[in-house]
């Protein structure tokens, strides 16, 4: 094999062949999550008349939002081969602080939200320091923190147990929609930016004579993605209120731009900055990273800080969706769903492999199972068992693909 084969223009067939050989060698990425999502939607859509309605679609998004945001934070920690079991209750604690500051102390949301995120950073910093500097396994540290934060949340929630929130800005995130016109404008702006950045990437590589992504393939992928999201926007812009004269329900839920923003920032940090590269390096081979001069401890601490900060944002989403904070906010199955979301999306539990978008795809899968089975009238017990099996299957796929890659 020589380098000269690079210079020959690759065809669409080559690209497909490349992709296929990548899958065979164990680099399957998000493929199982995408296929699973399609299958699940098909099954639930055929079994339930409600599942594929616009109303349920919007509902699904707001249901998945908080768990997805926690999963986004967990991706950073999982990339290092660590785990954060406390992320669920961290979101509860930070959400409680947000609600207490607004409801009991009359703070404005734009002051209370940063404070709650800073509290999240402090929680993450403590966990990260214990893991990185003292060398306590993250499983143990975050298990302790899981209990500790649960207690903290109980204390914060106090006697009554539930603190209401009435701040319109916070409530808007999970309950309001962009107007249809703004929804289309938002879709257009995001699409144009996406296309421009893609073209710019291909162009700048071509200019200095590097092998760039095949234009035909990129066009196909882009058209596909924009088409599907366009259909989604169209569906969300249709009236989905039962009583349109009374209240009109149309447009993209406000939480969608929030999650999209986090996705873009997270993807940028992981893919385009030295810090992101170092996270992958530490997760792949910590000793190699150390010898390359990377401050492994700092990277570890930073990942835990990011995870807890995103949990704080998820706490805000919980508060918004439930209109309140209670001692079980972020508890019960939240964390397990979030870990499940990241892993189902394609992030490896062994570290070094995973992307930001995994959290979103996996979060959707988890929400679809939860939502679809609920609509079909299954008991909560069955839902848990099915979600558990799906998580086990994804972790199994991860482990097997890893074995396939290392035996190469």
């Amino acid at each position: 094999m020589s380098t000269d084969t690079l210079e020959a223009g690759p065809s669409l067939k080559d690209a497909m062949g490349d992709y296929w050989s990548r899958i065979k060698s164990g680099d399957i990425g998000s493929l199982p999550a995408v296929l699973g999502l399609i299958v699940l939607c098909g099954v639930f859509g055929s079994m339930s008349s409600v599942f594929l309605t616009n109303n349920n679609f919007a509902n699904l998004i707001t249901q998945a939002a908080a768990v997805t945001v926690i999963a986004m934070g967990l991706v950073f920690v999982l990339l290092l081969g660590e785990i954060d079991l406390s992320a669920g209750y961290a979101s509860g604690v930070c959400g409680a602080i947000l609600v207490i500051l607004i409801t009991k102390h009359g703070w404005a949301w734009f002051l209370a939200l940063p404070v709650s995120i800073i509290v999240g950073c402090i929680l993450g910093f403590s966990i990260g320091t214990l893991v990185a500097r003292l060398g306590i396994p993250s499983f143990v540290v975050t298990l302790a923190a899981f209990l500790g934060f649960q207690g903290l949340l109980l204390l914060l929630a106090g006697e009554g147990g539930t603190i209401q929130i009435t701040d319109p800005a916070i409530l808007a995130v999970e309950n309001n929609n962009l107007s249809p016109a703004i929804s289309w404008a938002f879709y257009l702006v995001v699409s144009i930016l996406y296309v421009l950045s893609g073209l710019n990437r291909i162009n700048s590589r071509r200019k200095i004579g590097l092998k760039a992504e095949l234009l035909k393939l990129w066009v196909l992928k882009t058209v596909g993605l924009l088409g599907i999201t366009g259909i989604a926007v169209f569906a969300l812009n249709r009236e989905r209120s039962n009583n349109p004269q009374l209240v009109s329900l149309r447009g993209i839920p406000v939480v969608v731009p929030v999650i999209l923003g986090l996705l873009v920032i997270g993807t940028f940090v992981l893919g385009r900055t030295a810090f992101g590269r170092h996270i992958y390096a530490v997760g792949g081979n910590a000793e190699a990273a150390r010898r390359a001069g990377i401050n492994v401890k700092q990277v570890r601490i930073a990942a835990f800080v990011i995870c807890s900060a995103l949990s704080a944002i998820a706490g805000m989403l919980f508060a918004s969706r439930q209109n309140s904070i209670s001692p079980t906010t972020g508890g019960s199955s939240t964390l397990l769903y979030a870990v499940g979301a990241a892993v189902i999306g394609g992030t490896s539990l062994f570290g070094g492999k995973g992307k930001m978008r995994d959290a979103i795809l996996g979060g959707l899968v988890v929400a679809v199972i939860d939502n679809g089975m609920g609509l079909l009238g299954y008991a909560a017990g069955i839902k848990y068992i099915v979600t558990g099996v799906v998580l086990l299957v994804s972790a199994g796929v991860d482990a097997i693909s890893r074995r396939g890659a290392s035996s190469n």
Partner: protein
Amino acid sequence: MKFSMKEQGVSTPLLSLRGVNKSFGPVHVLKNVDLDVYSGQVTALVGDNGAGKSTLIKCVAGIYSPDSGDFLFEGNNVDINGPREATALGIEVVYQDLALCDNLDIVHNMFLGREVKKGYVLNESHMESLARKTLDGLSVRTVKSIRQTVSSLSGGQRQTVAIARAVLWNSKLVILDEPTAALGVAQTEQVLHLVRRLADNGLAVILISHNLVDVFEVADNIAALYLGTMAAQVNKSEVSTNQVIELITTGKSAGVDQGAKI
């Protein structure tokens, strides 16, 4: 990429060690070790297990600081405190256990910890062309795409990437710790060619090896350590394999002038 283009056979060594001592507690690992390393030459460092090879190169790489002794780099007396100072001088070490990240691609690995940035953003295309140029400069033709992950590479290709990473940074001295230990015949040949090419490009190379066939194939001179002392440093042409084996196993050999400086 620039190599220091010193002509072969210049009389001042790039690196000279004089009277280096290193003890770990009561164990005297290095005893008055002298070593000369020349640009454009491969210096093989041989010795039995426990002879002090690894300790010696770790002293050069700044991982250990020697108890006493002088380091002369390009004729100047230097102190190497820490790996970063060694790197700043142009000393790079390729470790036996490779130190590559399997989940990253070749370009990422070559620039690991020293990424080229434009503002806060990684300058991927610049790094990729630099990596490509370096590999081409070493006439590496065995790697299909430099965007494939290291996990998909063979042992020889991994070693190639590790070596290419070492020469990417204007390095003057590359230390290779048993680069062919885990390789098959064909891959060993590839890597030895690469080692030779480094020296031919003007770099100084220290090659640590147990395999005397490799040593005699690629080295210009041979330094044999015996129980922490430098038994001899001799030109390859002046010794036979048996004499080197004697130096390694007994510390002396009939017909080898142990006081001689090459």
